[in-house]
Structures are given as structure tokens and as C-alpha cells.
């Protein structure tokens, strides 16, 4: 049983982390909003869309009497697309995301959370419903959702490598998977196909550390996963470099192929690069089929 003091302490700790992340994300989102200024999006379905003649099956309640009275035939007033898009987010919270090769670089997880939250802010401001995959936080609108998302994102998951949650996907929703995709490839494949089966389109953003791209190691070394469940010893790390890069490229290629197959977008982001360009790309990629 956690004591009150401990609870309070960890709560304070969490609360202390929350505003910076949120502020960073708001800041990041702000930069994008500025660039997209003036774009109006469909609202809550209050806007007029078109009149159409009454078809069989339309209930009499749907007839717009004023329009009908003007013309003599009966019209139904259609509003603009009543159903807002639901965007489901999945951010890999596993231990492997906590890696950063340099103190000056943010960890992959931090960058992933930042991007995701910033995107969520953008989407929510745009009137979309945003939530997490799975059943924990279904998509909702409103500013309050941003806080809830932030809170959820700060929860660490156990495990060395994460696998996406593809349950309870809303049909035809949008989805964003952010991860280093170092984990079991089959689980990604399964999740993606499952999502695609339900008509969910989306984006896979692979966040990698520069060290993971360049493999700058030499000499005798024991490589361990962040959770220390996996390890690999080598006597000459520099010999492994070519083969590692080959494998990395192969994995990226498989991921890209999978995305192409399912109609998803695939992108790579390195923590050494600016978050803003990644956010722009994400935003456009999500918008493309919107």
C-alpha cells in the first residue's frame, strides 16, 4: 500500500514533468498553427452543406420546410460531415525509447511524446477527436483531452521493446504509431494489418537516435538492451558496423513495405534533428487523406 507521502511525492514529480512537456508541445504546435493559418475546418456539423431532394426513406422531420416552401418541391438540408475524424495515437513507452547516445540529445521517448502531443494539440484545436489506441483513452475532443493525453503519455510501460496496441480501433479512424520499431516485427505487422483491415489509415513514425544510425562503436564491447534483457558481446565492434547498418536498412525497408501495403505513411525521425520539421511532416501526412 503506497503511503500518502509517497503518493504525494510521486504525484508532485509527475505534475512537475507535465507542464514542461505540455508547454513544449504547445510551443511546437504553435509554430505549425502559424504556418497553417486561415484554414477553416468543418465544425460540429452546424454548417450548411447542401440541399437535396427528398428521397424515399427520409423521414419527414428531415425536410427543410423553408426551402421546400420556396420552391414547391421538398428538400432535405444536409449539414457538413457530421462525424469528426478520430485520431488514435500510439507512442512507444518501452525502455528502449529511453535511449539517448549523448547528453545533449533528448531520448527517443521524449522526442516521440513531444511530437505526438504537439500533433494532438494541433488536431484537437482543429476539432478532431484524439485518443490513444486501446481502451485506455478513447478519442474525445476538447482541450481537456490534451491534459489527459499528457498524463497518459507520461506513464512508462514495462518491457524492453514496445508493441502497438491495435485493439478497439475505431473503423475508418486515423492512427499514428510512433516508435523506434526495434521490437518484434511481427507484432507491428499484425497491428498494422489489423488496423488496415478496419479501414484505419495512418502514419508510422520511426524515431531513432543518431547512434543507432551510425553505430560509432569500436573495440570489445557488450551491448545490452535498455532493460538488460538482451545482450550481445563482440570483440570487435567496428567489424559489426556494416552488418548492423544492413540489418537496420532491411528493417526500415520491411516497415516501409508494410506501410505501402496497408496504405500507411512511413517516416523516419532522428532525435538529432529538429522536432518542428518532423511535426510538419506528421501533420501533412495525417492530413493528406483527411
Amino acid at each position, binding site marked *: 500500500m503506497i503511503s500518502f507521502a509517497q503518493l504525494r511525492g510521486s504525484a508532485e514529480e509527475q505534475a512537475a514533468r507535465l507542464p514542461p512537456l505540455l508547454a513544449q508541445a504547445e510551443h511546437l504546435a504553435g509554430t505549425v498553427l502559424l504556418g497553417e493559418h486561415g484554414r477553416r475546418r468543418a465544425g460540429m456539423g452546424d454548417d450548411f452543406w447542401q440541399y437535396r431532394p427528398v428521397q424515399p426513406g427520409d423521414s419527414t422531420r428531415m425536410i427543410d420546410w423553408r426551402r421546400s416552401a420556396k420552391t414547391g418541391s421538398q428538400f432535405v438540408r444536409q449539414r457538413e460531415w457530421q462525424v469528426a475524424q478520430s485520431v488514435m495515437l500510439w507512442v512507444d513507452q518501452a525502455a528502449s*525509447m529511453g535511449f539517448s547516445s549523448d547528453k545533449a540529445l533528448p531520448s527517443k521517448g521524449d522526442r516521440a511524446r513531444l511530437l505526438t502531443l504537439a500533433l494532438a494539440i494541433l488536431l484537437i484545436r482543429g476539432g478532431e477527436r484524439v485518443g490513444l489506441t486501446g481502451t485506455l483513452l478513447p478519442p474525445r475532443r476538447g482541450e481537456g483531452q490534451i491534459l489527459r493525453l499528457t498524463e497518459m503519455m507520461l506513464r512508462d510501460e514495462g518491457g524492453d*521493446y514496445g508493441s502497438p496496441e491495435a485493439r478497439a480501433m475505431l473503423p475508418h479512424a486515423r492512427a499514428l504509431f510512433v516508435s523506434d520499431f526495434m521490437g518484434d516485427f511481427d507484432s507491428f505487422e499484425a497491428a498494422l494489418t489489423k488496423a488496415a483491415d478496419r479501414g484505419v489509415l495512418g502514419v508510422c513514425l520511426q524515431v531513432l537516435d543518431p*547512434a*543507432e544510425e551510425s553505430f560509432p*562503436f569500436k573495440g*570489445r564491447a*557488450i551491448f545490452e538492451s535498455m532493460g538488460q534483457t538482451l545482450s550481445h558481446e563482440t570483440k*570487435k565492434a567496428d567489424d559489426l558496423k556494416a552488418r*548492423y547498418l544492413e540489418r537496420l536498412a532491411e528493417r526500415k525497408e520491411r516497415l516501409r513495405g508494410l506501410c505501402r501495403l496497408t496504405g500507411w505513411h512511413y517516416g523516419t525521425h532522428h532525435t538529432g534533428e529538429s522536432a518542428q520539421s518532423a511535426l510538419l511532416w506528421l501533420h501533412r501526412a495525417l492530413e493528406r487523406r483527411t
Partner: protein
Amino acid sequence: MIFGLPIGFAAPWVLAALVVLPVLWLILRAIPPAPVRRMFPGVVLLLGLKDDDTVTDRTPWWLLLLRMLALAAVIVGLAGPVLNPDEPSDGNGPLLIVMDASWASAADWEARRTMVEALLDEAAREGRSASLQRLTAPQEVRFQPADAWLSRLAGVTPMPWEPEAAAVAAWAEELAGQDFDTVWLSDGLARDGRDDVLKALQEAGSVRVVETGRGVIGLQTPAFEDGKVLLTARRSESALERGVSVQAVGTDPGGSERILATLPMDFEAGEDVAENALVLPAELRARVTRFEVQGLRSAGAISLTDDSLRRREVALIAGREDREGLQLLSPLHFLRQALVPTADILEGALGDVLPANPDVVVLADVAVLSAGEEAALLEWLDQGGLLLRFAGPRLAASEISRTDEDPLLPVRLRAGGRSVGGAMSWGEPKSLAPFSEDSPFFGLSVPEEVTVTAQVMAQPDPTLAERVIASLSDGTPLVTRKEIGQGQVVLVHVTANAEWSGLPLSGLFVQMLDRLAVVSSNSADMAEQMAGTSWQPLKVLDGFGRLEDGQTLPGVPGEALLEGALNADVRPGLYREGDRLMALNVVQNDAELVAMRWPADVPVEGLRGAVSRDLSGYLLAAALILLAADVLASLAVSGRLWGARVAGALMALVLVAPVHEARAQGADAHARDVALAHVLTGNRTIDDTALAGMRGLSETLFFRTSVEPGEPASVDLERDELAFYPILYWPITQEQPTPSREAYGKLNDYLRSGGMIVFDTRDADVARFGASSPNGRKLQSLAAGLDIPPLDPLPADHVLTRTFYLLQDFPGRYDSHDVWVEAAPPDAELIEGMPFRNLNDGVTPVIIGGNDWAAAWAVDARGNTLLPVGRGRAGERQRELAYRFGVNIVMHVLTGNYKSDQVHVPALLDRLGQ
């Protein structure tokens, strides 16, 4: 020797361990550096990858080499390498090291000691027992482990004398029947009995002799002749030309020792004596305490001086003292002028002067002496005095020495004397004849212009011819001399002034006086003088020529001193008996320094230049350094040498040094900063208040003026140095102890050297200045021992009223006007148009008042005032004035009468027309 290098090993078999180095190379090469653990999420992609190369990543060759070198250094270091190893000596029995240890070996004693150390080291390594003997202090030969002698080596010093033949012979006799090898460190001088000792040593075993071959230089006792100091140096090796310089060392007028003159002395090739004469003014000559050969640390290179160079005391006595003011006619005027530069002059009645035992008594035209005076003079003459008499009208008119020779006159005199060349006489004034060879004046040139117009005449006697030491051109005696006991009487047949002759006006007069005075020094028969006397050593020389106090040594009989044989009882040095001083020097005047010629069968070596040195320490240190480098290199190779670690290591190295410097501060802080101080009274409350007051005043000064005092000090008059503090605040309590005599001495020094004491009786609320209060009376008793000038109430134009602030009130916690300072000089007057009188030129040494200033100044550590002053705002104003007064006091102490000088500025500007 190894590969031609002068290196040997103490434990050569350890070097066999070097064989393992190649093996170790292979092993170390096979062992890869420890793996680095790295967190890396990409490890998933690595799983299943195999290393291409089955051979491990090797340790870099240079790292291996580093480690090999470190190991090799350890192995070689443990093998005990020795640079310049001593040649293995032939014997392995006991080793006897004989040192002459005389003054002659002191000059290169360090080399000798190093050599002995090396010999003992070697003996210790070989496990030989050894014995170290000094022939100047021979002892029974006892062989002990060489290590034991090594520890005693520091105390082995040369003696200021030479080995005594008899003692050495006795010592050599005891050696018979023993078996040992000998190394003889000779000083290079030949002396009696050496061959016998050598024979005895050779019987016991092999003998090696070690000599420098550079020869020995000694300085003889200086002689004083013809106003010059004759210095003679001797040497033992006469082959080459060599120059030394001799320094005359003495005290300057301040009493500190310094070099008064330097004289070069050159030995010609083939000569073993060098002589030179030093001409010194008498003033300087009298101060010379010793001559020494520059740069030679040896008792033989020092020659102490004694009475023979001392200034003489001359008593001047004239017969006629009735006329005043006619200086040039005074019979003593010319004598005084001639003698003052070269002698100490005593004047007074004969009875007063004689007990001072002057060297010379001059009687100028004194005819009759009382019987008592005559007896005293005779006794004094008997002990070696010189009585110099001048003739004159009185002597000529008197009847003494007319029929019988007066004991105090060298000749009988004719009545009336004679007058030549005068208005009433025939003939020309007579000039002087050249001095004959047996005259003490021989060699002095006779100037033409010296003529004699009147003189007293000697009656022809059988002894007259031998008593004349100077005569006129017509052969009449001018100066006659007679010996009485050890002394002598000299009569100059003319006056000491210019009445009868031109002699006193000439330079010859001075030269003749000089000659006569010189003759009067210790030249009499020494043996008789020395017999039965006992001389106390004042200073004695050690072997290196350093002077040591000899007062604790027993007295030495005069005969032994005269004999000059030096040993442990008769040390070279300065001796005293009564008023007489005598120097006994190492190199006697008749002693020759002769180099020792050793028999051909004795091997003679020089002092070994290259000393064997143990190198193992260096090698082991090198191994440590290499291992430290290996740590860094290993870190670098495995990628763990981070900047922080390097910086840390470097910082650790750099920081080691300054740690020592960080101490030793604080003690002299007061010497560097201005610091206010108060006197500890023993009353805790008052002391605390005084310290707090000093702190408050210091802070005020710091904030308001350019004076930035340090932390104030509490001064214990008995223990602390006062000179650091410009000002002492002295609160008076009734129960404080009166300072000791030493403390008063310090306080008076402090006051005279510009310090200021502020006395505060702290009772101005109840008492006026003076003895009206208990504190006032206490102040009077305390200040009785102080050198305090007359005091005045602080005048309105005193410089204290304007050193920083313009003040007319000097309140502290109490506001009394009774503040007293040094009185103004009586002639200080107010000049028209000047606002101030020009008062004291210095700083008033005391300020006396009772306003309890410290209490008004006192602040705590946070700067809050400690004690209330007055009431309300008026009180704060009073406190402010108290601070201002304090600032003025400190400014006055630090700037003196600077603000007094400012009053002249308007006048100066006015005169310059501006």
C-alpha cells in the same frame, strides 16, 4: 661495468626475471582489454551476428611496450643497479678509515665525507666491519659494522689543529697484531711520525692513501710594520701560479660584521709564500678582527688579529694651562692634530690618566713632577709604556737633570739651552740631519724647511751617542731615547709647538710620532711577559674556520700559548688576559707547509669524483610513472578516458602544490594591513566592548575613507608585538595589572617610533580629567613609566580637529571636552591671516580622555550598535560625532601633520601671483 657503462648490480640474479618478459608479452597480447558495457537498443539487430575475426582485438603494441617497460624497470630496479659502482676491494677483512681531519682537510671536507660515506657503504654491502679514526683525535680502534659508522658520520668534523706526533705514535703502537685494510684520507701535509704510522698500518694490511693533490693554503698572523699590515700566505704545493684574495673582516660602526678590505695575493710558480702589504687607515685597521682567505673554509685560512692592530691610547699632558684662547700657541695643539687620526687621546691630570694605562704619555714642556707622579710613571714605564717628552722654556729653565740624569729624561741637560739664528744670536737656524740606520725614524725623508731655532742641549755623556735617534745638521742631538724596564723615554729637544722649531708644522712630525707610537706596541720580550699568566679563550676557531664562543673553555697558561702547539687544550682563537688580547692562529709564523711525499709502494688516489649512486629508486619510480601512464592509456584504449577524468587527474596533480601555501597566513595579516588594536585589560566586558569599538571604527573607516583596516586586534602588552598597529586604544580599569618592565620598554619604543595610544578612563560622566577619579589615578600610575611629553587640552586649532572631519567636540559615549594631547611648542603663535597655528610637527603620541569612545563605536558582528548613546536623535548625532572623532584620530596617526601643511597653501598661491 656493463657494456662499458659504469653500472653494477647489487643482486644481478634478479635480472634473470627479464627472461619472462617475452612470455608475458605473448600472454598480455592474448588477453584482450576488458569489454565495455554499453546500453544500446539496437542490440536486437546485432543478435546472432558473429565476429568475423576469431582473433580477439589485441592490446595495442605500444600499450604492451609500456607495460613491458614498467615491468622491466621493476625487475632492473629490484636488481639494485648502482651507478659508478665501487671497485670490488681486494680484502674482506675489517676496514680502517684514517682521516687526518686537520684544519688542512677542512676546505674539501664535503668531498672527504662523501668519499668516506662511499667507502662505508661499500663495506656495508660487503658485510665488512669498519672503523673510522681521526688522527687529530685518535681513539682506540674498534671495528664495528659499517652501518653503525655511517650513522655517526655527520658528527665527524675536522679539528682546527694538526695531528700530534706523540699521540699518533702511541695510537699506532696499539695497532700492532691486528689485521685490517686501511684507507688513509690524508690532508697532504708532511709532518713528523707519519712514516711510523704508515709502517704500522702496512704491517696490518694493505694501505691506500687518498689525497686531493691540490695543496693547502694557510694565512699567517699579520705583522704590522711601517703603518702597513703585512700579510703572508703559505701553500704546500708550489708548482703552479695561483692567486688568492685575502679579506679583512671587521665590524662597521654599526657593529655588524663586514668586509673592510680585500687584498690580492699571488703565489708565483715555484714559490710557496706570498706576501703583500695592506695599507689601511688607522680607523679601519683598528676595527679589523680577522683576515681570511676568500672562499676557503678552513681554520688555516683565518688569521685573527689582536692588540697589535689596535689604536693606541695617548695621554697628552701640558705643563701650562694658564692661558686660554691661544690655541696655536698651546703646546699640545700640534700633537693633538697629529695624533687624533691615529690614536685615542686622553687628556687630564697625570694622576687621572695613568690608571687608564695609556700606551703613550706625552709631557709637553713639563719640568717638575711630584714624587708620587714620578714613581707612578716609572712603574708604568717599567711595564712597557712610552714616555714622550717635549722641551720648552720651562724645561730649559728648570734645574732637573742638570748634574744627575733624571730618571725620566734620557740625557743630562745643559742649563738654558741654546738659540740659533735668532736676532740675538749668530748662525743660521739649524736643519735636521738624515736619520741614521739604527734610528726608529730611519727612512723618513727630511724636509728642507724644517729648521730649529732653539733647543735644549744634552750634556755629553758616555751614553749619549747611543741614545740619540735624531740630530741636527751640526750633530747636536734633537731626539734622544732611553729604555726603562720594558718601556722607554723619548725626549724631543724642541717644543711641541712652533715656538722653537718648524718641526711641528711639518709632515715629518706626524711620521715621527707614528713611528714612535708603533714602537710602543707589544714588541717586548714575550716570554717574560707570558710567564705565569693564564689566558682565557674568548673565541675559538673550529676546523672550518668558524668562530665559536670560548668562554666556557678553561684558561690556558701563557707559556703554552707562546709555544703555539695547538691541540685540544690550546685551541686557535682569541685569548684575553687582563686588558691584553692575544690571537693564536693556526698557521704559525715560522711554520712551513710542506707537501707529504708518500713512499712509492703506497698507492695514492685522488678523491673520487664520481660517487656510486643507487639507481634502484629511480627505476622503481620510473616503473610507477609508467604504470600510472598505463592506467591512462588503458582507459584511453577502452574508450573510458573521459574529459572529466583527465581533468580530475590533472587537477589532483596541480592542487598538490598550493596546499602548502594555503597555510602560514593570518599570522602576519596585521603586518600587511592597517589594523586597529586595543590593549587587553583583563576585564572581559571592557575588552569585548573595546574590540567591538575597534571593529565599528574599522568599518566606519572602511566605508567613509580610503583607509581599509583589517580585522582589529586585541593586544597583550606582555606578549604581542606592537609595531604592527598604528594606534592602540587603552581603556583604563582599576584592576588591570601594571605592565612589566619589558612591556614598558616596548610601549616606549612604540611611542617613540610614531605609535599613538588613546587612553580612555571611561568616566567622563562622573569625573573631570586628572586624578579626581579612581580610573584617573590608575591612568597616572600606568602612564608613569611611559615616555609621554607635556600635555595640553586639545586646542581648537589642533590638527585633530580637521584631519578628516571638521570637529570641535570629541564625544564618545560621554560628551566631555577634557581631551588632552601633546602640548603645543611654546613658540607656536597665530600668524596673521592664518586660521591655525603651526603646531607640533609630529603625531601626538597620546590622546587622553574619558569619553568612553569604544562604547560609542562598538558594533556587533552584524553591524548593529551595541550600546546606547544619549537619547533619541541627539544621541545618534553624538554617536556620529564619536565616529567622526575616531576617523580623525586614525587619519591623524596615518597622515601626521599633513593637514597642518595645508594652511600654507593660500599663502603660497598668493605669492605665486595666482
